[in-house]
């Protein structure tokens, strides 16, 4: 009897443990699939409010255009007025910054901060967690009212910006609620919260994001998105378009 009880308990524990272990690779794949637009175009207007202690809030409005199938995106800055017409164009591995005042293109980087905010240019790019990261640890938890998986991710290559990420993902729909991004030395650099998503043609785009700079006290950035659309875009992913728009 005692042996049977022990065996039953062991079996129950195994089942319970199995139920608590998610298929993390599948979760990462789902995260990518439901936020990327592999066969269609995407565009939206983003407002970026950057707050730094002792300074006035810096508000930018930019229009984002994406064609994930060709790894292209373009960001056109609409506000503030002094920066209107500036833009970023990604062609393959190259990211160009266009300044309408000088009418010149300069090399930029996906890893650079966007318009002096805590958002990076790569934040506007397609999601690639399944390719760039592997999950080293996952456990169940609660974040607010949501049941989540708390996953610790390690980069699978040495070229992504953050070698380590901790991620809170909803169990029911694999939407990211929060991320903590760590440096190579293991220092927390940035915390991102994703309180709101919008369904755009079956994909989920975070329509509100809060980014906190953990290295610099009091610095944060809020992004909000509107006018999200998957209407086909004309041939705009080239330098000519950025120049034409500014004429």
């Amino acid at each position, binding site marked *: 009897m005692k042996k049977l009880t022990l065996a039953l308990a062991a079996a129950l524990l195994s089942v319970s443990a199995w139920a608590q272990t998610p298929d993390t690779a599948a979760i990462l794949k789902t995260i990518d699939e439901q936020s990327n637009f592999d066969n269609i175009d995407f565009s939206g207007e983003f407002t970026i409010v950057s707050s730094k202690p002792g300074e006035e809030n810096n508000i930018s409005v930019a229009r984002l255009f994406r064609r994930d199938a060709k790894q292209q995106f373009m960001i056109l800055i609409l506000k503030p007025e002094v920066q209107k017409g500036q833009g970023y164009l990604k062609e393959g591995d190259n990211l160009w910054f266009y300044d309408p005042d000088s009418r010149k293109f300069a090399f930029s980087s996906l890893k650079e901060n966007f318009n002096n905010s805590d958002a990076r240019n790569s934040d506007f790019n397609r999601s690639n967690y399944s390719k760039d990261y592997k999950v080293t640890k996952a456990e169940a938890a609660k974040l607010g009212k949501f049941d989540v998986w708390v996953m610790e991710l390690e*980069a699978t290559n040495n070229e992504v910006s953050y070698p380590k990420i901790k991620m809170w993902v909803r169990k029911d729909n694999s939407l990211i609620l929060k991320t903590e991004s760590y*440096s190579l030395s293991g*220092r927390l650099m940035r915390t991102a919260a994703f309180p709101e998503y919008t369904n755009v043609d079956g994909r989920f785009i975070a329509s509100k994001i809060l980014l906190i700079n953990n290295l610099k006290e009091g610095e944060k950035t809020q992004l909000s998105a509107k006018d999200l659309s998957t209407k086909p875009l004309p041939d705009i992913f080239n330098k000519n378009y950025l120049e034409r728009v500014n004429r």
Partner: protein
Amino acid sequence: MVLPKIALKNLGRQKRRTVLLGGAIAFGVMIMFLVSGLSQSMFHAAEQNISQLFSGHLFLIGTEKTASGRYKIMLKNDEILLEAMKKAGVEYNGISRRTTQQRSNIIFGKDNIIVNLSGIDWPKEPELAARLQVTAGDLKNVTGTQGLVIAETVAKKLNVQIHDQVTVQVETSTGQQNVGDLTVEAIFKDPDLFGGSLSAYADIKTVNTLLNLQDGEYTRMGVGLKEPARADELGKKLAAQMEKDGIPLFAKDNFQNLMKAWQEQYWEGTKYSILTINDFVPILVPLYIGIQVFSFFILFVLFLVIMVGIVNTYRMIVYERTKEIGTLRALGMQRSQVRGLFLLEALFLSLGGLVSGVIAATLIALGLGQLNLSNTGLLDVFLNNGRFGFEINPILAVLVFVLVAGLTLLAALFPARRAALMSPAEALRTTL
């Protein structure tokens, strides 16, 4: 020999007129030499100061391409480069090996600043330690430690003091974000390079760890040339030698275009780029040339005005000495000798003005050199230890001499011709 003696005597007869005319010439020459001499010295001082900050006049950068197509800046095993320099005849006083990152973010509390962070092998770069004007702390506390040396402007912006711990955020050689805590161990006066260069230094091993480089790896080799003025020429010679030796090399270009080439091209192993000090501060040479051309233009305009004065004065001299010219002609002096006499007077006048102008410029420059301007910040990069220098370019000096003498002779030519063409009888009949 008689004519020169007479010419010199004639100049002494009207001392006031001679001094005024000569003084006008001297003024123009003084301005020219002062502007040219100061700008030449400032240019060389800037080259020297910048090369000391950048640790060389010629720079070699190695880049590798990763599997994903990203480039990585890294140098190691540099024996082939040293061998190529030897074959190309590039003579140098020293080599520096540094790990640098241009956009490192130093954070202290709510403040931050973007700086050019350099990893230094301090025992091998005593010149840098000697050159840095340390105003607080001690450089001895930096070797082999997490110590950081920052410019005064950086310290002021962050409101940090010695022994404060700051956070340094960098991008590694492959683009990963990394963060480390360093301690401010020394603060130095940073010459403001056109308002754009904010510097910080740390031990090379500390910076290598931040950038995820191994021991012995670095990002830039600086070569301190024995002949800095030949930096561009020696760079080309080295490039030719490296191509001859089959060492992969990017075509010479400015830094922006090189970055584009690193991004767009594909290669295996390490491919090198050669840059000179003029590539890092491209404005220097055009600025220097511009100032030299401008000073020549000023001299030319001044002399056009002075020439008008010389022409008028010599016309008056010829008029005043009409009877004297008649007497000389009557005594057998030929027309060419009369013309030659006036031209010689003009030549001696111009030579006197030239010499006086050069002496005046030198004295003023020496006076300016007594001023200690090392606290102005703005001019530091153009000064030699906080003071103006003065250098006369011999070729320029010869050109100025030729120009001034030529213009003076030209101004005196027409009156001199007129004097030579005078009829002796009519000249003697003149009532003056």
